[in-house]
């Protein structure tokens, strides 16, 4: 799943197939390596599970993200810190202040 998350963050939507291949390949190498450790055995099912979960993550994250975007739009903007004002060249007089929640109906 973390591979799906990273690929979605890095390359955006429509990367389900790539996420499956990358996650399944990494999992295959890990499970293969487990056969070479004393007392351990690989699990071939993990390869498919890893691939599917990464693909599922890339499909689910756009939906989850759009929910978080809606949540952020529903809430007030955070107060600007002094260092943020200074870095953007804003003075105290021009600093925007949150007036309250903005409701969307």
């Amino acid at each position, binding site marked *: *799943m*973390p591979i799906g998350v*990273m690929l979605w*963050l*890095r390359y955006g939507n429509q990367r389900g197939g790539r996420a499956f291949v990358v996650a399944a390949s*990494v*999992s295959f190498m*890990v499970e293969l*390596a*487990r*056969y*070479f*450790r*004393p007392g*351990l*055995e*690989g*699990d*071939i*099912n*993990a390869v*498919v*599970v*890893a691939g*599917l*979960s990464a693909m599922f993550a890339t499909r689910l994250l*756009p*939906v*989850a*993200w*759009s*929910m*978080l*975007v*809606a*949540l*952020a739009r*529903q*809430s*007030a*903007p*955070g107060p600007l810190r002094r260092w943020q004002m200074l870095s953007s060249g804003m003075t105290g007089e021009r600093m925007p202040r949150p007036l309250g*929640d903005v*409701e969307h109906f």
Partner: protein
Amino acid sequence: MRHDILSWPGRRRLGCLCLIYAALTLYSSTIIGPLGPHFVYRDPAEVFRLFLATPYVAHGSDQRADWVANLLMLIPFGFLVAGTVWPSRPAFRLPAAIGTVLICVATILTIKYLQLFFPPRTVTLNYIVAQTLGSVIGCACFAASHRRFSLAGRRGDPVAALVLFLRLYLVALLIFLLMPLDFALSAADLQTQIERFPDTLLALPGGDRPLAMRAILIAAAGAAFIPVGMLLTFVKAGVYRVRRGILSVACIGLAITTGVFAFSTLVISAAPMMVSIVYRSCGIVLGAVWIRWLSRQDPDALRGRLRRLVPWAIVPYLVVLLLVNRLLSADWLSVQDAIAQANPLGLLPLFDYYIVTKAMAAKNIVGHAVL
């Protein structure tokens, strides 16, 4: 913004998933066995007579976990079959529900009949009843969730959809934590659980595993409760808003995690730990803090920041992956030794899930998916 957040998957997609699930159930119930694939030809008519005489076996509480696991295994199948045949007109819904149960029962009986060709597998009425109940529960879950999803979809409120998903996550998490749901029901079972209770007070997660892996396990177990903390911050006042304070969330979270611990002490197969109350509550508080912070961020800027962090996260992720799989070691086998050590049956798909309890198999699947 996406407006198809709550669009229900089409019937064709649900039908495909249903067929895949049925095929996997058939495969894992017949081909997979303690000796691997073991088909023995017998006269189908004779096998049918044997099938009609399927016995009911009076099991003790030690078999309850397997019975409940069989019930749980058929819930997704009932859900998917119902989703495939569910009509849009309310008048046809009762016949559709009856049809769903009939399809599920026919599938279960067919698989049970075929199992008799694969000794040493046996068939009992206990598991037929458990699986039928599971498919009925799956059908009921679909009927309830379909209505709820349809209502939420018509409302078109993504925040309400988020709350709905978080609630579903909470239900799934509670079922997962209490698996295999084999609660102590008799006085003797309760007595045994009470005698076990002092062991739960000082038990720590991870058993005899290395310290780093135990730390990762505790972090993951706590992180599983982050979405619960997110859910608890929402208060509905017309629309859902992040309103509840951290202290209130912490108190409710403590009550939930204590309740989960109390229930898990009644599960015969579970290994409850009192310390879990602490790290699960920490996860809840972290979730509350995180959603409050997240709701005040600029989403585009945040995504840009996360995108830039990805290359820095690759190496830590790989280190954790190797650590959890015990691959950070200098002790390795030669190719010959590795071949001698490997179990050839382990190369059979799903065999590794067959040889452990179903609850353990579910935990393995979740562990592999999360990593």
